[in-house]
């Protein structure tokens, strides 16, 4: 049987089992309505709080899953925060990042003249990557990153150390808030190729259920909140 024939057979069997008709317009209308309305379900009270409390909750939740967090007043302070972090962890003064407008516009030369800057997707030898998150989700301390030239996806996973910058104004309560943001930016029924929700560094419990950080992805996740 060809794939289209199998498709047909599966769908027909399904309709027989459900005792429904392929041309039932009411059913189709129900499905279309649900998809176009994409109504949120129950939203936990935990994240339905004032914005400044959401930022505090985000931080607390991210730290609970072993991310480290610092905050800086303005964008200009980011290069120094990075240099300082690398020094504190005994890491080389070298980062790789994409074409993100905010990251490209930072005063690197003026503030961190010794920091080596590499551009583009991750390379196997990279130790530290730098990305900008489009949002931080307070309810679970989760960062949201989207694929593309600005923040190549491999930067999120290949290097052992991941530094992520997020603006305080982009910290929000829930996952549902992020879907609304993405629909506004990309249109209905469309997502960027990859949306990564990241909560803490990589980990595994596969050996006797003991949690070890840095299984395959980053061992360290450092978050810098701006503003």
């Amino acid at each position, binding site marked *: 049987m060809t794939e289209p024939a199998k498709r047909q057979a599966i769908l027909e069997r399904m309709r027989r089992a459900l005792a429904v008709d392929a041309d039932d317009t009411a059913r189709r209308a129900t499905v279309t309505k649900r998809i176009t309305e994409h109504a949120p379900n129950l939203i936990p009270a*935990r994240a339905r709080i004032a914005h400044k409390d959401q930022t505090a909750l985000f931080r607390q939740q991210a730290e609970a899953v072993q991310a480290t967090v610092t905050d800086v007043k303005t964008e200009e302070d980011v290069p120094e925060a990075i240099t300082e972090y690398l020094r504190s962890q005994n890491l080389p003064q070298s980062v790789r990042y994409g074409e993100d407008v905010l990251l490209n516009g930072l005063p690197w030369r003026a503030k961190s003249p010794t920091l080596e800057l590499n551009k583009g997707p991750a390379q196997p030898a990279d130790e530290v990557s730098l990305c900008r998150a489009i949002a931080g989700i307070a309810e679970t301390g989760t960062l949201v990153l989207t694929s593309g030239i600005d923040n190549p*996806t491999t930067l999120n996973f290949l290097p052992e150390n991941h530094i992520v910058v997020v603006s305080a104004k982009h910290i929000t309560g829930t996952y549902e808030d992020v879907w609304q943001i993405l629909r506004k930016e990309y249109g209905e029924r469309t997502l960027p190729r990859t949306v990564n929700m990241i909560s803490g560094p990589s980990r595994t419990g596969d*050996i006797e259920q003991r949690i070890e950080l840095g299984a395959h992805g980053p061992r360290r996740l450092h978050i810098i909140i701006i503003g």
Partner: protein
Amino acid sequence: MKPQPTSRNFKRNVVEALDNEQLQRALTNVPAGFIEKRRKAREKLPEFDALRDQARDIKNHTLRHLDLYLEEYETQVTASGGHVHWCETPEDVNAAVIEICRKHSARSVTKGKSMVSEEVHLNAALDEAGIEPVETDLGEYIIQLRNETPSHIIAPAVHLNRDQIEADFRATHTDLPADRNLDDSSALVNEARQILRKKFIDSDVGVTGANLLIAETGTSIIVTNEGNGDLTLSLPKVHVVLATIEKLVPTLEDASTILRLLARSGTGQEFSAYTTYSTGPRRDGDPDGPEEYHVILLDNGRTNMLGGVFQDMLRCIRCGACLNHCPVYQAVGGHAYGWVYPGPMGSVLTPSLIGVDEAGHLPNASTFCGRCEEVCPMRIPLPKMMRHWREREFERHLTPAMIRSGLSVWAFFAKRPALYRVATGVAMRLLKLWSGRDGKLETLRFAGGWTKHRDFPAPQGSTFMAQWAKRRHD
């Protein structure tokens, strides 16, 4: 070689499991870890049970309209540049994956954790086709080295102890110095990390599973902690998603509701480290990511569960909570069940997928304590469905004569309430008489297998029905 189901030998498997000291030692980690963590996670989210109701309703709605949501999903995958391959059987899946690999002259395939891959025995098929399958989830990597199947749906190597894994690594990674220190888990994790890194970078095709599929956007979701799934899907030229038809949910919002339950129920985390939403291949201007995106959509008997008594099982999100909380699973581990899906969910699913002839014993692997249903985030009535299978098995007269006569005796009394009350009262007094002072029976006639490893508590007080009648009076 393709592993054969051994569910028929469930009884023998259980006896062997109970006598396996290594296994018994490893299994003590299950209740200590998962159960306590789930309890805490649940406590921290007051809406947990209300979310379970909603998750159940979301899936019920989706299953009732599954044909239409699948069509919507397919349209969106195609619109984002991906391909959907409809498959009836495991053979169809393996043929489709091998064809994709051949097209790209792939010599090796990196794999994220996928239960569908286990269900169709993809690794054996790839091996036969001369393509090297590389499991990259640490637990899966370990059992691949040992040529074993997973013993748990979210913790594949939970049946092993650290020292066994160390021995496997020493036996396999022979080009590393023999005197290296592998004394703790972190040394083992690091070694696997170093070895698999190269595999990730050399891989031509990456195969992952899918926790959910979203009709709204044509998106597949993977939920992981290690990041191996993400390296699997972002580094190779091709990303192949293995999924089954019931993974669908209508919208991103619906997915979020279910995801609030998944990690909390399984590992007891509030959210897993990585939740990744993939929609189609690399876009114009993307500097990384796969150039091709394929979704293999498998039925393998699931449409036959629609519209019948086992439809509810299609709500399962493979969180593992029912395994973790099951006294039978805790005692014998996953391999005794003899096929891919162990524990209560496996006892219901396996007979549906490989037939009651093969797996008819599994629904008996229950004490009907009801904990599985209590913890199931999707509120699947697992004990009820196990009973359905038992009844079917009984009707087909596949049950050993002993159980059959036992059940017919019970049925005889159950249909005659007055007699039942008298008989159970008598039986209870008899059991109490047989037991010693401590109220425990060390052996039970007709149930020697059961009492070999534990004592059967002799019933105390009066029968349930007598107590019930008394309470109603009080």
